[in-house]
């Protein structure tokens, strides 16, 4: 079959044999979908069958790959998820919300529950579930594409060549900032404070960056722009099947080696919500009531 992009657009016969994919959007922010739209190269080689953001279609048809974004927040999410996976050969959980419930997981608080209960009488509106769940709490997932959101390059990898994707082990290795042993900060700077120096490792500058243990493959856009890594890609392969304490311990060791910042300061900062937003997913990877996610399933 001729797979050259522009040829295939013109020949409708070829189009019919092309791979088909769909995107199921559960409760999330649509950032993953926007990222997918930035990776426009799939247009010539894949047929997008369902994605409510950009396609009007009622149901997910038979597809080769189903990407699922967002967490399971409402009874409608639950229903859509259960019906959609039956139509797909391969199911991929995409983004922090689908993999760990994401930012919506922070909503598992009493105030939010009260609100949900008080709103259960609303007409025609889907009922909210007691908590926001990751998709693999409900259905079986073939692979995971973490990131908030995953970059366009990662989307292309998951569609075209998941095994062949070349990413570094950690964000640190993709960052390009240089470490300087002679600079040892003794205090942590807040995220929003200070002037970021070009080219110098953010830890040397006193920022709480967790890129040393976070999964690579994103090419480190945040640290390159001068913002510390907050760990949205989840644990690197080295930590992925282990307890979260191992992972937190390793961050502590990095700061012990590179800085004179008191240990308590790091430990406290790691528990702050900006990090908790992403770091809680580390415990989700290998803990709770589900089996650990296998690293060979994570892109």
């Amino acid at each position, binding site marked *: 079959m001729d797979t050259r992009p522009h040829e295939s657009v013109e020949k409708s016969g070829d189009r019919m044999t092309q791979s088909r994919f769909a995107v199921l959007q559960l409760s999330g*922010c649509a*950032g*993953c979908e926007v*990222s997918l*739209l930035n990776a426009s190269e799939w247009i010539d080689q894949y047929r997008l069958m369902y994605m409510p953001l950009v396609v009007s279609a009622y149901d997910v048809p038979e597809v080769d790959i189903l990407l699922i974004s967002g967490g399971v927040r409402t009874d409608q999410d639950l229903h859509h998820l259960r019906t959609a996976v039956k139509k797909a050969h391969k199911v991929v959980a995409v983004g922090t919300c689908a993999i760990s419930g994401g*930012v*919506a997981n922070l909503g598992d608080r009493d105030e939010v529950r009260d609100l949900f209960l008080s709103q259960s009488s609303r007409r025609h509106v889907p009922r909210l579930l007691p908590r926001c769940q990751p998709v693999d709490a409900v259905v079986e997932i073939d692979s995971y594409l973490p990131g908030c959101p995953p970059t366009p390059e990662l989307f292309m990898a998951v569609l075209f060549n998941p095994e062949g994707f070349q990413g570094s082990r950690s964000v640190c290795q993709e960052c390009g900032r240089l470490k300087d042993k002679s600079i040892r900060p003794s205090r942590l700077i807040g995220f929003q404070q200070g002037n970021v120096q070009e080219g110098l490792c953010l830890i040397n500058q006193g920022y709480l960056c967790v890129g040393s243990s976070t999964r690579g493959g994103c090419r480190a856009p945040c640290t390159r*722009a001068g913002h510390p890594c907050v760990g949205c890609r989840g644990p690197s392969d080295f930590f992925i099947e282990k307890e979260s304490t191992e992972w937190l311990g390793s961050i502590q060791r990095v700061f012990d080696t590179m800085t004179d910042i008191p240990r308590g300061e790091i430990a406290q900062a790691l528990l702050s*919500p900006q990090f908790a937003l992403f770091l809680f997913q580390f415990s989700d990877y290998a803990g709770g009531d589900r089996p650990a996610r296998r690293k060979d399933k994570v892109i």
Partner: protein
Amino acid sequence: MPTLIFPISRIEGHAQVVIDTNGSEVISAHFQATEFRGFDYFVQGIPAEQMPVIVPRICGVCSTAHHVCSVKALESLYGITPPPLARRIRELLLLGQLIQNQATSLFIFTMPDRLGTDSIFETESGNTNKHPAIAIQSLQVRKAGSDLITLAGGQFIHPVKAVIGGVTGGIPSQAAEIMRAKLQAILPVACELFDHYWQTSLEMVERIGSWGDDQPSHYIASTGSSSMNFDSDSICMLDENGKQVDCFSPAQFQEKLTFIESSFSYSDETTYNGEIMRANSLARINLSKEMGTPLADEYLQEFQKTFGKPAHAIMLFDLSRGIEMVYALERAIEILSTSLEGEETSVPFIPRDGEGFGLVEAPRGPLIHHYTVENGVIKKVKFIIPTVHNMQAISRALKVAAKRYVAEGHIDLELEKAVGRVVRAFDPCIACATH
């Protein structure tokens, strides 16, 4: 009493339209937001300084507006003013988002209505993709906006580069020049697509016989009455005749706007003195004397000559978006032609408790963040989302459309397409509206 329910696609987020009928009578038409996450609640207790990185997650489409608005809310609380270079870079961020958003709304969300397809990408029902050039070019235009966000904001969906007091750094001249050339190259592509869009809109209106609900309405926008400014400071109200009747700071929103909790939607609704109002592109176009850039001003003149000022028909929101897309490209090219490095990019600040109000003009209208901070952590927040200002206007326009297609013993199948066109004209964002 039959109830018709239409789920709405090609918008941001989960929503549906519910129309109650009785014979030939349309009893009610409602636009319902069907998702909810609870950001108002789970940001309580978060250290205030961390808000600028958390709030972009309210919405991956409008993330840049939330990012900048959050920083501005905290700057108002700490009593600091960012240096001029930081404001130029933030304006670039907001323009990048405007390019991306307006291109998406025009070409991906609403162009299929003009072409009579389900999507500009191929789907089950469309045997062959008749519009590959449109699909590829549309994605190129919106990608130019994303690239600008990446340059000015670091991360491409949830930006990180705006910080309290400024931005994390300038833009090197070489990178600015590459981006300027890229936008310069995409500008004629965007104009050509928009011309095609304008033409197919005219053809569609000829076919269906209406530009939609054209009842005069109040308008709310913060871009100013001379040329456009999206990094805005105050909010203007226009009355039905286009006269500016009020202008207020973000801190006054509670006294000026009335918030109504809805019993059929996870989104609130707002009114101004009991009046239905409209936000988004048409509100800004009705407010502005000029765009302030050459090509966009040509389009604006053509628009005003054809449709008058103020213009009220709802599908003129769509055309207004095209004018703004052209403006955003031209304005970004202007800013990128100036030096964006070598100056101070941020000022220091001392955190303190109290109340802060941030305002930006997001693609969908004025966005306000209101934070109450105690002991350095968020005690209470209120996100004033522009889509919420449009909720009553959307329902009114839906009722107008429904009346057109519902008759005794007969419902015209065009109704489903009509409700889609109505909702998409307002380009609502449900993830934001419900947060």
